[in-house]
């Protein structure tokens, strides 16, 4: 569903590589966690996968289509939820969802049904008449999630989706993510919360300084240790190597 091949991103020609030769393959039915420190290159990678950021080298394919060459076709089957959803604050929640429905060409009866279902799941139905400006961070996050699901995407790309969510909404989102992938969808998301990644993900990738440290099935990556231990070991090893060099 999402293939990242030798993806390299350099913000300026003479600057350092924000992401260096990253290759990942997210298949349908998989929840793929993307772990790393702040500034490791997670958001840079995620934005490139969504067509928000151009990249220097490599290729990103969504369902076999290049995000560079066929961005519109790719975007039709995917959804992106950023870590800090700056939504249209001047719109009410329902107008924002209707706007998203218009852009993705979702039939009105279908959008009504989906809004009713997902907004109810996220507990924001009552607030849909209010302006987005009056929403809390968590409510904006929930609205962004409902909007992302409006067109029944095949691939969900999420940047720190659990930040700002209350426990109930986080639980519902995790449940939804599992159901979504069990029904053939694919999810690629970044997180700092290792416990969530450990419990939720089928596969993970750990990135540091733009370089991939490890990836694969969660059991393979962690072995007999906890994900937290593996993560810290990998990161510290690299740090030690760097210091040694």
């Amino acid at each position, binding site marked *: 569903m999402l293939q990242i091949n030798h993806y390299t991103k350099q913000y300026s020609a003479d600057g350092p590589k924000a992401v260096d030769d990253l290759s990942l393959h997210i298949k349908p039915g998989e929840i793929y966690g993307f772990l790393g420190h702040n500034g490791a290159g997670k958001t840079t990678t995620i934005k490139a996968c*969504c*067509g*928000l*950021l*151009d990249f220097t080298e490599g290729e990103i394919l969504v369902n076999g289509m290049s995000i560079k060459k066929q*961005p*519109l*076709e*790719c*975007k*039709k089957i995917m*959804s*992106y939820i*950023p870590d800090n959803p*700056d*939504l*249209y604050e*001047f*719109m009410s*929640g*329902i*107008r924002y969802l*209707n*706007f*998203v*429905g*218009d*852009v*993705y*060409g979702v*039939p*009105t009866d279908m*959008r*009504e049904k989906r*809004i*009713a279902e997902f907004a109810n799941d996220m507990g924001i*139905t*009552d*607030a*849909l*008449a*209010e302006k987005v400006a*009056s929403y809390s961070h968590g409510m904006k996050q929930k609205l962004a999630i409902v909007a992302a699901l409006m067109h029944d995407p095949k691939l969900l790309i999420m940047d720190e989706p659990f930040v700002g969510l209350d426990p109930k909404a986080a639980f519902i989102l995790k449940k939804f993510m599992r159901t979504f992938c069990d029904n053939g969808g694919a999810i690629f998301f970044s997180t700092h919360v290792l416990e969530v990644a450990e419990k939720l993900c089928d596969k993970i990738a750990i990135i540091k300084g733009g370089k991939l440290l490890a990836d694969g099935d969660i059991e393979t990556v962690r072995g007999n240790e906890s994900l937290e231990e593996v993560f810290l070991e990998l990161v510290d090893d690299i740090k030690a190597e760097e210091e040694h060099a």
Partner: protein
Amino acid sequence: MLKILLKNRLLALADQLTGQSKGKKAAKLSTYALLIVLGILILIGCCAGVNALFGNICVRLAQRGEVWAVYGFAGAAGFLLALFLTLFYAQGVIFEAKDNELLLSMPISPSAILASRVGSVYFLNSLFTLVLLCAAGYTVSAQTGGIGILNWILVIVCALLLPLLSTTVSCLLAWLVSYITRRTGRKVLVQTILSLVAIAALFLVTMGVNRNFFSTFAESAGDIAQAFRRSLYPLYAMGLAIAETNWGMLAIFAAICIVPFAIVYYVLSRSFIRIVTARNAAKKQKYEATALKGSSVVWSMTKKDLTRFFSSPPYMTNAGLGLLYSIGLTIFAMVSGDSVIRNILEKTDRFSDPGAYTTVIAAFVISFFAALTTISGCSVSVEGKNLWILKSMPVRAKDVLTGKLLSHLVLAIPVSVLCSILYLFVARILTVPGVILMFLMPIAFNCFNALFGLISNLHFGKLDYPSIAKAAKSTTSSLIPILATILLVIGSAVLYFTALHGKIDVTVYGIIVTAVIFAVDLCMFSYLGSTGAQKRWDELGQ
């Protein structure tokens, strides 16, 4: 602590004025230096302007021994200007500042926070007052053979005292606006109404100051000065203090300025936490599911941009100024239409077909006002932090840009058509080519203005504005389409009357201009769908 807060506030104010939020220190210093030079030029311009306009009045007042009135009028103008320009600023920085809660969580006293906020309002107010009082001092000096150094010192002292009064009133009005918006939950409506009232007042004052105003004023200056003395005693005291170095009057004036300021400051500092942390009292609306209505992508984009426009009073009043002026012009034409038309006819009766000339001139005038509408000129910049939404959606740049174009045109074209209809109704000059021209020329210029603004904002607009209001107020976004359209409108009119008059019929010329502008519009519109526009759109936010 107050010094740090005040310094931060003034630096933020300077950044706001210069449009800089970050950059090298040297670049910032050079911009500040430029700002100071600009300030000095404005001061010189004001001195010359006030002297030219009020010189005669000053002489008459001096003959009657009422020079104080010159300072009084300048003070009144400075007071009103300061109030008009800083009311919403005061509301924003004092009562709705986003960092109020952050600062309150730090070991800083509320009175220090308030003092820094009120200090920045006072600073702005004192700039306006200083310029006008200095201009008054210069006028008196130029017309009466010079004033003493003591008078100049008193001008400065009063320019520091009077802003205390305007700051007091600004703070009280800002508190009132905040209170009403909080109670009603209708922030946009309250701010829009207030902005429109302020603009309408400014418009009426501008229209009222016609060519007869100054001579009438000069003739009855003495009576006005007496009325002034009775009804605006603080400014009378100030004028007398400066003009006659009357220390008693200075003491009275100082007390009038300082005491209300101290009281308001004391009350606000005592209730600052309660005011800035108060919640919106408006009842929350509960969503009731209703049938949704779908739209095409372009129309959905248009509706989105229109909603953004109507949700932001600063966006409406800055970018939609042309609409307001066009409506104002229409009302003015309705009220005093006959005299306007007569006036134009008097000026054009030396031509063979005065009706045709007035029609073409009116078409140019309506087109000129169209130039002041800059909705599309900042429509890309206002996306700002929301840009990710459009860029993550399967939507072409052409659809996004067409939506932005339409959001400008659906407002601008009906207003210009209304102006044309009312003009025709008032003028009663109905020739078929003239009628067609009256409608088509403003539409062509409106399209030009919208397209030019949109394309220039796409290519040169910044995206890092912290809010819609800041993007809408950006000088580059607004000035580029305004200047381009004004130059084109005035250039086309001047070209005819300087080079082509007598060689080509005026109506034919108007039609040619309209056709050329439409052709340019078509080229610019086709650019919106080009790979160049798509590429530029893709580059945004990279």
